């Protein structure tokens, strides 16, 4: 078990790599004994590193109810992530965590849920979605609004089509930015689609995606009459230690690695706009 205070990581083994989109792969990671490296809660993150290449924080995409392994959906967009994409199953990496707070899944009980995600932002949200589905009776109606640049950029496609759409009392709304062949679904940006769908404003909302999408989604939710206390989002900044000491991921006096990454939207009002 990795101690949270330690900068010394555990060894993790990549047991499976699944290509989600041209630039996103999902890595399944266990510890050396083949077990889940540590327990986690929805929304928490872990530091994954390849010594000599780099170390970075990734949100854990699998649900806490998955006790066998952890999954990380990683987009190739930097030195470490590009390198991770070249790896093969069986490769060891280092892993430490879990870091950060989490989505208050218990508070959401019996509520109707609305999940809004864009692009790779579905990864942390997926952890909650699968948690909700694993305890389906505890939660109300589920709506998932998910958009990406193109149909090819939608992550977890199989899971969305195969599993999520089949769940009872659940609606999945997919959208892509621009029309393309073989796509008969909705076309348009997520915030616009959100307005069109005109959800009832008694739901609890979880939003994650690119900062610009979050910004417009929040405006749209406001128009629909949602209160900030109903909306949760996750933030991301550059991190090094994961324990609120290295001093770079702060927004005002809050450290994203320790006090975040999950914030209720009314909390953001008290924080400087530096994220």
């Amino acid at each position, binding site marked *: 078990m990795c101690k949270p*205070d330690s*900068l010394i990581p555990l060894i993790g083994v990549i047991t499976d790599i699944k290509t989600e989109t041209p630039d996103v792969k999902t890595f399944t990671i266990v510890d050396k004994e083949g077990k889940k490296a540590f327990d986690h809660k929805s929304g928490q993150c872990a530091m994954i590193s390849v010594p000599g290449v780099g*170390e970075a924080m990734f949100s854990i995409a699998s649900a806490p109810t998955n006790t066998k392994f952890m999954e990380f959906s990683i987009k190739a967009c930097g030195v470490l*992530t590009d390198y991770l994409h070249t790896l093969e199953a069986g490769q*060891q990496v280092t892993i430490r965590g879990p870091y950060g707070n989490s989505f208050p899944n218990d508070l959401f009980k019996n509520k109707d849920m609305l999940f809004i995600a864009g692009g790779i932002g579905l990864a942390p949200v997926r952890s909650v979605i699968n948690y909700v589905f694993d305890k389906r009776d505890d939660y109300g109606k589920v709506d998932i609004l998910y958009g990406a640049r193109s149909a090819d950029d939608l992550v977890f496609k199989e899971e969305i089509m195969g599993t999520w759409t089949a769940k009872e009392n659940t609606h999945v709304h997919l959208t892509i930015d621009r029309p393309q062949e073989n796509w008969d679904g909705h076309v348009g940006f997520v915030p616009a689609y959100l307005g069109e769908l005109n959800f009832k404003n008694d739901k609890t909302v979880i939003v994650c995606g*690119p900062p610009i999408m979050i910004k417009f989604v929040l405006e749209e939710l406001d128009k629909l009459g949602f209160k900030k206390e109903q909306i949760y989002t996750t933030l991301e*900044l550059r991190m090094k230690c994961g324990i609120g000491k290295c001093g770079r991921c702060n927004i*005002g006096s809050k450290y994203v690695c320790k006090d975040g990454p999950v914030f209720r939207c009314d909390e953001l009002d*008290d924080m400087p706009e530096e994220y």
Partner: protein
Amino acid sequence: MFKMAKKDIPNMLTLLGESMDVYAPVKKGKLTNFEDFTEGAELDIDTLKTVKSPKDFFLPQVENLFSATSQGKEINIEAKALRDKPFVIFGVRSCDVRAMEILDSVYLSEPVDKFYEARRENGIILSLACNEPGQTCFCTTFNIDPAHPNADGAMWVINDNIYIEARTEKGENLVKLISKFLQEGSKNEIVQSQTAIREKLNKLPYSDLSLDGLEGNQLLDLFDTPQWEELHKTCLACGICTFICPTCQCYDIKDYDTGGEVVRYRCWDSCMYSDFTLMAHGNIRNSQKERFRQRFMHKLVYHPDNNKGEISCVGCGRCVNKCPSSLNIVKVIKSLAVKCNV
């Protein structure tokens, strides 16, 4: 309270060196810094401020965390040992002692930083009263008393004697080790010196520097004040203020490939550097104004917000002396305080 002859200090330190590492202000050329006190080193307890603060000994500029080797798809890591040899730092000033307490509030708060903790446990600090407070000192603004320093043991230089008072168990054990140099002293003998120091403090240029306007919860007001635009303008974005500051605590974690293995180390970092918050998708603090603001907001607002109002500055005045553009925290405090009084 004990006293000993000032001229015996080098011998006393040599004796201590038999059972622990000894660090003391050592003069080399024109520079005085805390260094290994070895035979022949020129002890300098008259210089008020070492260039580097003694935070080095608890939060070294570079600290190796572990080394990793890989073979095929396997990785092996070997954690570096924590500090386990005791050491003493001789002659730390009041401000630097307080700085250590501020670092404690970061590194010893949950989750505790083991590397720092180990050094802290093994370290003994002997502090020294400032007989001649400097022109750029403003420790009194933070209620630090240079006439009555804290730490494991406190010392006063009075004429040819040095008075030593143990304050903690560690300090008392240390005093036992050097008992052959000591004779009984009385508290009354230092009172006069303390009074003299306090009088001098009142006459310093910054003695009336006040924090009015910085207290209370007004984070967003201070964050958005137009003052930052004015203040940062000539900042050159070097890291001199952060590296000589006794309370700056941010670090970076980096890898170094030695050819045979990869060493992961942590090292001091500066929020003044552009890559401090650089991410694959961009940088949240793109301009020097934002980075400059971060440093001072951290010290004056964010840190107090998280630590019961304790401001992360000790008034040592190092930045006042060293900034190439003559910017410093005093100018920021004055500017922000003015803004809030209006």
